[in-house]
């Protein structure tokens, strides 16, 4: 049977992983390839590399670091941030990534999802979306609004309308990142994760807020997510004690979540 995935997300600046809290106060953790290699050895299922300043600085993605990470990890690897065209996607895939994740750019130019899916297959195209609970009102029937540009800009777009459109355009996977929960270690927003999972037929990934194995299990069961993005719990210096992949998987299996067996 298909198992659930644990995905480690790295926010990268200048080749180094940093950890922010609700999109602010970045602190330095480690070189991206070192952390990637360590997590690969610990049998993480997947890695997302987020070039967090590429979009804001309107520069191209850091391909050298992408290549370096790809040489160290033999699990799937997604790149996010700074993708503005199909040619950018091509370069990132050629550097060794499996998937491209688009976010703010796709809200401004939704056709990039279709163009990317046509060129490389929809399984390459991940739509990542930053959502915030704002309450039900006109034009926002789900009560969740899509934000862009590091959660700074409100779009007035309803979260569920947007993920349905993204799926129609060709996104092969949807990441639901809760702005309210990001960096809080208080658990995923299960309501919106579940609502998105019910709204689309492609796999949905829970993101933002995992602080314990229990939170992850809830995202993968009550939240109906196919995968869980984690970061702080693995390596944030703000955490009193970081947990390893082996430990997390053992706890998830105890809670009845099917995981790829840990190989000793």
């Amino acid at each position: 049977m298909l198992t659930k995935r644990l995905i480690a997300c790295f926010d990268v600046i200048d080749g180094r992983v940093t950890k922010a809290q609700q999109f602010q106060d970045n602190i330095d953790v480690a070189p991206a390839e070192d952390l990637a290699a360590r997590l690969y050895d610990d049998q993480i299922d997947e890695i997302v590399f987020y070039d967090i300043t590429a979009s804001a600085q309107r520069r191209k993605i850091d391909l050298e670091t992408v290549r370096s990470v790809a040489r160290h990890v033999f699990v799937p690897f997604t790149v996010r941030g700074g993708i503005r065209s199909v040619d950018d996607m091509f370069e990132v895939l050629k550097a060794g990534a499996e998937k491209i994740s688009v976010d703010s750019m796709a809200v401004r130019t939704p056709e990039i999802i279709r163009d990317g899916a046509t060129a490389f297959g929809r399984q390459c195209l991940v739509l990542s979306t930053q959502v915030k609970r704002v309450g039900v009102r006109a034009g926002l029937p789900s009560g969740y609004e899509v934000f862009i540009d590091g959660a700074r800009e409100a779009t007035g777009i309803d979260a569920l309308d947007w993920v349905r459109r993204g799926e129609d355009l060709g996104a092969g996977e949807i990441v639901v990142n809760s702005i309210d929960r990001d960096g809080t270690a208080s658990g995923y927003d299960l309501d919106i994760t579940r609502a998105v999972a019910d709204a689309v037929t492609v796999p949905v990934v829970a993101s933002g807020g995992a602080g314990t194995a229990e939170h992850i299990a809830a995202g993968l069961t009550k939240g109906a997510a196919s995968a869980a993005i984690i970061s702080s719990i693995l390596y944030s210096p703000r955490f009193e004690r970081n947990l390893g992949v082996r430990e997390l998987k053992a706890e998830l299996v105890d809670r009845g979540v099917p995981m790829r067996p840990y190989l000793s």
Partner: protein
Amino acid sequence: MIDVIDYRAGNAPSVIYALERLGIDCRLVSKPEQISTSDRLILPGVGAARATLESLDESGLVDPLTRRVGEGGVPFLGICVGLQVLFDRSDEGDTRGLGWLPGEVLRFPVGERVPQIGWNEVRPTREHALWEDVPEDGHFYFVNSYYAVPADPADVLGVTDYGLEFCSVIARDNVAATQFHAEKSGSLGLQILANFARWTP
């Protein structure tokens, strides 16, 4: 020396990185004359069957590949879409495949999330050099919306469940292929690549 076929729609660099980690001699090839003299070939794949075939065709690689693997008998490994293009036809864009193996490629039935993305169990159906040091319940990384249905059951080498039981690994003579991404399936995936490098069909 393993030659990894590089074409626009492929993810050949990931396969090269994996072979380099294993210490296996390898290179990217993209020209017909390189394939005509190759000793061992990998056809990686991501994305769509039609884009893959068009890309191979535009580069003039289809004929040399078919000759080298068919008449030349060199060991060949297809990965993901590199498995799907070996059959007669694919539902994906109603595409005609290379036709090296009889059978077709179908879309997963309604009911499961498509694409299948993630680690799933592969059960070997018979002994083969590719299975050396691979456990019977090994998990590998899949990303696929379509699956192959070989017309000849003897071509099946491994099966996986996703809504239905499908053929996830094939082998016939000197041709083998995995639906999963061996280059992205951790240590077990690397083991499959190492086994392919040593395989003498």
